[in-house]
């Protein structure tokens, strides 16, 4: 089918998923037992005060109406008020999201910078010591819980060796650079503040690595498998037979097709990074969306829960959309057999 048709289909499908997601989470959040108004006001607030808050939050209207109001509000950027902070959830999210974005971006960076070369070299020197070592690393990577990586890393590098900080994004007394993107690494560079940049980098090293561990393991193995596959293809043998130098063969003919494999699981990898972020943010007191989300769930902050899940769902759907489109663009076969369930 034409590419534009493919694009539109994918877009519609993404919107459908988001809608379904919003209904699902809305229903769950609303039927969760618990009275967040009471929770927010404390035990002594008289019933009428609680009622007043409930009314203000619109919790006394029928469910479908609440949902409709909520969806309508979304288009105005109004995600409702958080019970805990009494502010617009959208504000809260813009405050906490950059930290998690930075964490996951850094993690994905590690995944590709470490995982792909490792996988390539593994395939290149198949069954050698490098291959075996990297396979062990990959196995451990997918087997170890990310909070364990975080805790052990903290133990070794922060407490015992003392070379890395334990928690947070910056040392306590380091001034935060003026907020432009919310990503400390970028903001400090833009402000020309190299000291802060270095400090932020030191702080993000361990957490992002903990998040990336699973991804590194996955990508290494997928890249390796993909490359081995390609290396066995006839046209590679032909190229070699023609006397084309090995380096050239590797980079021009092998690498590009090998990238398809890791890319297809990028969407999956992103999901697992996000999941890992929840655990790692807890260990490192990273003020991100995951911590905010957990707190919202525990305090039954409905609007905050909705906001967080929607944002995560949105991000997820967007990433999948981009990956699918890219894959469809690069590999026409995928466009043709539209619904390959090769996830």
């Amino acid at each position, binding site marked *: 089918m034409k590419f534009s048709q493919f694009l539109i289909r994918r877009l519609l499908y993404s919107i*459908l*998923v988001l809608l379904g997601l919003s209904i699902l989470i809305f229903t769950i959040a609303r039927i969760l037992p618990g009275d967040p108004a009471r929770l927010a006001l404390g035990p002594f607030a008289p019933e009428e005060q609680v009622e007043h808050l409930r009314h203000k939050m619109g919790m006394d209207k029928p469910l479908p109406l609440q949902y409709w109001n909520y969806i309508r509000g979304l288009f105005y950027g109004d995600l409702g008020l958080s019970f805990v902070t009494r502010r617009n959830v959208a504000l809260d999210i813009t405050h906490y999201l950059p930290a998690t974005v930075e964490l996951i971006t850094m993690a994905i960076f590690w995944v590709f910078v470490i995982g792909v070369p490792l996988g390539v070299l593994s395939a290149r020197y198949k069954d050698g010591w490098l291959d075996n070592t990297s396979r062990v690393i990959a196995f451990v990577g997918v087997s170890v819980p990310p909070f364990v990586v975080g805790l052990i890393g903290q133990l070794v590098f922060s407490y015992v060796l003392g070379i890395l900080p334990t928690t947070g994004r910056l040392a306590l007394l380091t001034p935060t650079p003026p907020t432009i993107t919310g990503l400390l690494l970028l903001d400090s560079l833009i402000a020309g503040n190299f000291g802060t940049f270095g400090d932020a980098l030191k702080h993000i090293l361990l957490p992002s690595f903990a998040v990336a561990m699973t991804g590194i393991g996955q990508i290494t193995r997928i890249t390796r498998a993909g490359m081995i596959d390609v290396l066995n293809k006839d046209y590679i043998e032909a190229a070699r037979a023609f006397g084309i130098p090995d380096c050239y063969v590797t980079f021009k003919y092998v690498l590009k097709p090998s990238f398809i494999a890791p890319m297809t699981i990028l969407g999956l990898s992103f999901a697992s990074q996000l999941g890992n972020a929840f655990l790692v943010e807890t260990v490192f007191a990273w003020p991100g969306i995951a911590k905010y989300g957990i707190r919202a769930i525990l305090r039954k902050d409905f609007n905050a829960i909705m906001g967080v899940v929607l944002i995560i769902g949105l991000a997820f759907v967007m990433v999948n959309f981009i990956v699918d489109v890219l894959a469809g663009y690069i590999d026409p076969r995928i466009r043709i057999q539209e619904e390959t369930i090769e996830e």
Partner: protein
Amino acid sequence: MKNKQRVLSSVNSEFTTTQWMVLKDKVGRAWYRFRRNPISITGGSIVLLVILLAILAPYVTPYPQHAGAFTDFLNAFQAPSKSYWFGTDEIGRDIFTRVIFGYRISLMLAVIVLGISVPLGVILGLTAGYFGGIIETIIMRITDVFLAIPPLLMALAICAAFTPTIEKAMLAIASIWWTWHCRLVCGITRSIKTEEFVQASWVIGDSHFRIIFKDILPNCMSAIIVKITLDAGFVILVGAGLSFLGLGTQPPKSDLGTMISYGAQYLPTKWWPTVFPSFAILFLILGFNLLGDGLRDMLDVETGGI
């Protein structure tokens, strides 16, 4: 899909002697390949060891009563020693014993979650792939929605709504897990649907039910088995994550995730309540992953994933 095994369904649905011999031969060869692969041997041994330890827990642990209602505050935080191999925790209980009992809970988690989600996912996947059309679209879209949420978040939300017990955690994970098997089986079904032997059964007049269970399902089995093994590891990992966040077992029981979470407060001076359960859980998950990988090589299957 490479090297599918063709299991023909006979009209009387009985295994003839030839079929028995073929099966035995296949199993024998598979076992040979399994034995020669260091990955599968290591994985299999680990899993077997842990399962044995877990089953025999009251007999192989030095202080089985420490896994129950027991306090000994005067012996709290003993470093690892001859009497307490992994040291004691903040209540004075032997950590080695509790780790072994913790394995019980991890394994039970895997059994229950997979026991629920696999049959559910397989049946839905077979249905979707076989009947195609609108049924498939609906089922696939539902799975998409569930897959759009990181499993941990979904499990958290469900868990936090009710009393945080390990059972709720299992249910929460199971409620998402079926989607993976569903997609897997759906994909396999779709490709097998067009094969000759399935067409043959149609022509003969076998009912849909028979075709699905006699022709299609057996061809999915290898992929499902491999996925279950790999899933076991992943389910235990997610379960540990949930209990680390505080949604696990109730005292005095402790699963490994909860033990790590409680122990983390006492780092770095009292490292043993955290470090030993951490390595214990890594050990088990690694075992399942190695085993799954080995099985996959052995059965020569693509599960279309990790």
